[in-house]
């Protein structure tokens, strides 16, 4: 025990004098958490609260296109800028290059006529199916497509949302025309505006309710998603200091002396695990504290800690232990610090990607979905999300902790095997 204590004191002293290492382990992850949360929060705001600038070039002179432009404006997602009807596509492209707008829509010249024709066609078919006379079947039911121009920097998710919003506006216009046509065919007079509005604007409301395990209705936000995720990343980032420390000790003269002393190097590895596990817990404490107290000051949503704090502590220990074991394992198998740092950094990004830190695991397909189970970060993230987002308790995360411990034990086994193979223990 005295030897272990001496080794822990030694490791702490070395760690505290490694300013770059401390910077990498604490400051960098903190910056990462703040930046990623802020960016994701802004993206969320951009799509949900702010409006995307949209250029509209309406080459049509009819009512349907005007209704479409109005409907697009009412979606609430866009700030509509109308361009003159005679403007060409180049102007739209130039505007986008100048970042005046991210999107542009050209409504073709005969849009209203075609929409009306399609509406008459649909109404005619409907009347015929009711056993009433309809003559619109002779008419065409095809509307020229709208063209949406977009800046390539716009993410696919946003593009799809935009497409959905415009499609919904288009649907409204087409439904209105079809209704009018039907009403006119039956009543031989135009549909009253009031009725038209009642029929089209009577939209059923959608209530959103997060399904939590504790019944609490906390709406997830960028903070609740990002802080736990990037805390895991920070803990695994320990590899940049610990992996290098193991290699440095291994290749330095001090290791030769350690090998000639009557103490097994396993004690040294145990000391490193204790030291860096404390570091991992401190990282989590610092990042969570920032989420709770600093985030509101910089305009971000505050972090809400889970109700079951002992479970949070246990999950953090399990994640930290796994991160430390991974770093030591990489350090033992690396020949140089460059190898350890290079492989360590890249492998962590890969494990994070596969583990669902960058793209949610549920959105992954096939092989990647199965590979997620092999990433310790996946189990850490699932456990944290269960606690932070679903209001889960310890019993709910046991299923995540067990695979995490198994991966940790495998890493420990590989480390001991590597040391034995290299005649280091």
């Amino acid at each position, binding site marked *: 025990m*005295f030897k272990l204590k001496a080794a822990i004191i*030694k490791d702490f002293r070395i760690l505290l004098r490694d300013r770059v290492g401390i910077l990498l382990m604490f400051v960098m992850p903190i910056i990462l958490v703040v930046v990623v949360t802020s960016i994701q929060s802004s993206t969320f705001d951009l799509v949900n609260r702010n409006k995307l600038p949209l250029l509209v070039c309406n080459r049509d002179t009819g009512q349907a296109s005007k209704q479409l432009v109005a409907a697009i404006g009412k979606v609430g997602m866009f700030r509509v800028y109308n361009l003159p009807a005679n403007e060409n596509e180049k102007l739209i492209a130039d505007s986008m290059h100048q970042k005046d707008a991210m999107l542009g829509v050209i409504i073709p010249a005969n849009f209203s006529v075609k929409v009306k024709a399609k509406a008459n066609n649909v109404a005619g078919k409907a009347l015929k199916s009711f056993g009433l006379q309809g003559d619109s079947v002779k008419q065409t039911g095809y509307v020229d497509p709208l063209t949406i121009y977009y800046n390539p920097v716009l993410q696919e998710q946003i593009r799809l949302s935009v497409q959905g919003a415009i499609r919904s506006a288009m649907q409204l216009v087409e439904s209105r025309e079809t209704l009018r046509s039907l009403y006119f065919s039956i009543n031989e007079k135009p549909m009253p505006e009031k009725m038209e509005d009642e029929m089209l604007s009577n939209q059923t409301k959608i209530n959103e309710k997060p399904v939590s395990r504790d019944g609490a209705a906390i709406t997830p936000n960028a903070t609740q998603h990002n802080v736990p995720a990037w805390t895991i990343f920070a803990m695994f980032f320990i590899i940049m200091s610990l992996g290098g420390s193991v290699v440095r000790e291994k290749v330095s003269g001090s290791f*030769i002396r*350690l090998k*000639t*002393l*009557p*103490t097994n190097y396993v004690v040294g590895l145990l000391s490193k695990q204790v030291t860096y596990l404390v570091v991992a817990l401190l990282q989590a404490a610092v990042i969570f504290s920032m989420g709770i107290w600093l985030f509101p000051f910089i305009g971000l949503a505050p972090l809400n800690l889970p109700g079951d704090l002992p479970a949070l502590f246990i999950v953090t220990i399990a994640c930290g232990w796994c991160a430390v074991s991974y770093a030591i394992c990489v350090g033992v198998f690396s020949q140089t610090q460059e190898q350890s740092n290079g492989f360590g950094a890249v492998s962590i990004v890969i494990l994070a990607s596969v583990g669902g830190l960058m793209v949610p695991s549920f959105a992954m397909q096939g092989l990647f979905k199965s590979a997620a189970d092999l990433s310790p970060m996946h189990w850490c993230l699932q456990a944290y999300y269960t606690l932070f987002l679903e209001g889960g308790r310890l019993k709910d995360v046991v299923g995540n902790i067990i695979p995490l411990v198994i991966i940790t034990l495998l890493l420990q086994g590989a480390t001991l095997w590597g040391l034995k193979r290299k005649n280091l223990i």
Partner: protein
Amino acid sequence: MAIDMENIGFRYPGNPDMSFSGLSLKIPKGERFGLFGPNGAGKTTLISLMTGLLSPETGAVKLLGRDLNAHSKEVNKLFGFVPQDFSFYQELSPVENLQFFGAWAGLNKRNIQLRTDELLTILGLNDVRDKQVAKFSGGMKRRVNLAIGVIHNPEILFLDEPTVGVDVQTGHAIINYLLELNKQGTTLIYTSHQLSEAEELCEHIALLDDRQIIAQDDLHQLLKDHNMENLEALFLNLTGKEYRN
């Protein structure tokens, strides 16, 4: 016997050639023994075999009558090792290094403190005892290296180039300290390319060349037998003047 190597055979993993084959060497207790040879002669390999850093393929190494490989951790308490490289933590101070290595050498807290004070005084490091070793001169680092090797009062002390790169004063102080340790009963196993210094320290020597012991005896007897004035002349006479890799 301090060291008893019998019929040692060793080869590095992946190397088909034997580094040593049928090598035997006995070093009596309390001796100041020098191991010399050109680069690549096998000195470091031999010391690594004596300290258990490498394990022989055949034969056995005994330190003070105990089999090194059978009880390696127990036997490790008997000897100290001062490698050529600075074998300590540069981020720590001399005191912090001695605290850690003392604990790992099996000393208790009180003995570590006593030995630390004693060694830092003897080796002239008391004024810088709490300063970071990384900022020390080469000579001061050599003294820290030596202090760590002897903190647990070993019965046998292996020294691999203990004075390389130091000034005359530091070299002289280190040699005097080693002679003092030997007077107290410590067996010294020393290797170096500084042959004048070796002549001052060693009473018995072995010359290694091409992974074989080509001469081994009392230093003065060897000089007399080969009619040589000093160790350097004897060395060149027995190992030749060609470059070695």
